[in-house]
């Protein structure tokens, strides 16, 4: 594994999933979201958002922009578009 590749942990509490991910720190957040799409299969009105600490990760930025380091835990939150809906 090169220095730029780091292992991180992804947690999706909504789907009760935990993933170990090897990612290049120069990859964009978007790259990871694209990879997660077939796995989590959000609905048409939903979207995947990644949280790290108290930050929502901007999909246009890279992992290194957020000081994401080896072993960092990133939360996957599946948001529903269109805001609020009745149960």
């Amino acid at each position, binding site marked *: 594994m090169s220095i730029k590749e780091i292992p991180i942990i992804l947690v999706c509490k909504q789907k009760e999933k935990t993933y170990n991910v090897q990612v290049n720190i120069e990859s964009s957040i978007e790259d990871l979201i694209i990879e997660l799409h077939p796995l989590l299969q959000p609905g048409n009105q939903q979207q995947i958002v990644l949280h790290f600490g108290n930050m929502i990760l901007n999909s246009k930025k890279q992992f290194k922009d957020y000081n994401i380091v080896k072993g960092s835990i990133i939360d996957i939150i599946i*948001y529903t578009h269109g805001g609020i809906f009745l149960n």
Partner: protein
Amino acid sequence: MDQPRQPFVNQNLKFLWDKLQIRTQNGVIFQYPSWKDQYQVYNSHKDQYENIISLTHKYNEMSEELFWGNQSETIDVLIFNQDIDVNPENAFKLMGKNPVISYYHNVSLLFEEKFFKHIQIILISPKNNIIYNFENKSIISTYSSPYLNDLLRIFIKKYKPQDQFKVEIVKDFYINKFPHIQVKEPFQNLKPQTPQCRLVDDKQTIIWLVDTKCLKYYLCFEPNFITYYGQLNENYQKHGRGILFQTNWNDYNPNYIILQGNFENGKRNGIMLKFSSRSQTLSHGLEYLDDQFIKQVDLDQNGKIKVAEIVKVETQDKPISTAPKKRIIIMEEGVIINNKEVTQNDRQRALKSDIFVKFNQQFNSNDEKILSNRNSWLNSSIIDGFALDLQKQHFEQAFNSNDPIKNFNTFVIDSTYLTSAAIDYKLVTSLKALCFEFKGLTIFDVFQNIVVVVNSNNSHWYLVLVKREQQQGVYQLKFHILDSMLGPSKKYINVCQKIFNLLTFHLELDANYRFDSENNIFVEDVQQQNDASSCGDHTCFFMYQIFNGNNYKEKNRKQIGEMRGMLYNLIFGQQ
């Protein structure tokens, strides 16, 4: 705040000075001598001085403990030598053979500057005491002797007569008993403290004294979104141990920085621990010299330097030599699960080019449609984004006003606190960033208004304004309901109880805080909505009024009608 002091580093030799030892990456090279080693030197007086030698040994260990545990600024090294009274010439001559002196001699050679700043040597004999303070260049002695200066020659390589230490002869014994550690008194019902506003380094700063009984710690709010908890010097500059919480705003998005370490006269100095959040996740160490960033240091989970090797931070303008490797491997329970190629369809679905992040929320064209259409309900991104912006403005306005203490009075807790357990630490982070974890001061001392944004069953928005009142020695939390579709107070019991429980848990509020069920819920007579979609607009209006010190009970349908336009400009406008 009991984070241990970081080891001192000798950058040239890659040596670390830590508690009772000097080590390199590969192991310990000098260690404080054990009691047995010291004992052998004085073996001839075994019975007579056994007790005192043992006590000096214990004292020195305790002194090191206090220093590296950050409860003392100096290590007071006690050296016992009974010959000082009877044969001072010989006593000072043989001083260099004392194993304790030898150890600190090595410290002085390898960490010269730190040694002179932090070490004080106290020679004791059955009749006399002599204190050598290297920083103040003073010798305080209970007797006069031409040999007093001899000890200095051991530690100062090029001893110059003009640098002679000032010798002060005192009559009384300095030490007639061994010092003991001051035991911290537990906090009792402290009266709410009064902050003061001072100009520190030309910046208006709100300063709270957190602890008056033991060590003096302060909680300071500075402009530019800086909160500091730690020690100050006489000029109220950061000095000593402290934690700095800073929010940098970049493209309307906050970037939280939490640094813990040593400050000297307001400047960061030495290795600071950088936390990725207040959840105790240590990311790495940053070394500063006079507030200037020097380099990044790898730390282990205990905050110790992993290796003496320093990793230089890449600068942004450094060209990237090779194209980044893009492949991402996702594993679940040890099995690679993303081994299929991502199809164009997946890519298109995942990529929503109109997505952007502002105010730490994600928005897209759908939010634009919501804000352009009065019949759509506002979503959490819009409301929480607005809340963050109001908090930011509040901070700025308070410090630009004539009375920052009075005007810095409102704190908002966004809707994710109650709706998404997955990210509840987000609030804990921001609250703890304001140092509410520290005993003796709570969020309610600093802010009179705690605004909680509530999303009720995914179908309705309203605000709960939490205030504290002292009644008969206990604190009652009062919940004011600002709801544009108000109901009886009973309706809000569950939500208020939940807020009370979460605040009690996360802010570690003590047993003095009470929630007296329905009696503490006040449903306020606020503007009511006359449609089925504007609860979010009303909620934003109430929030706006509170943050701006206006009357939230004001009936102003026109202004509420303008909220959506204001939100649109805020999120989609070119500001």
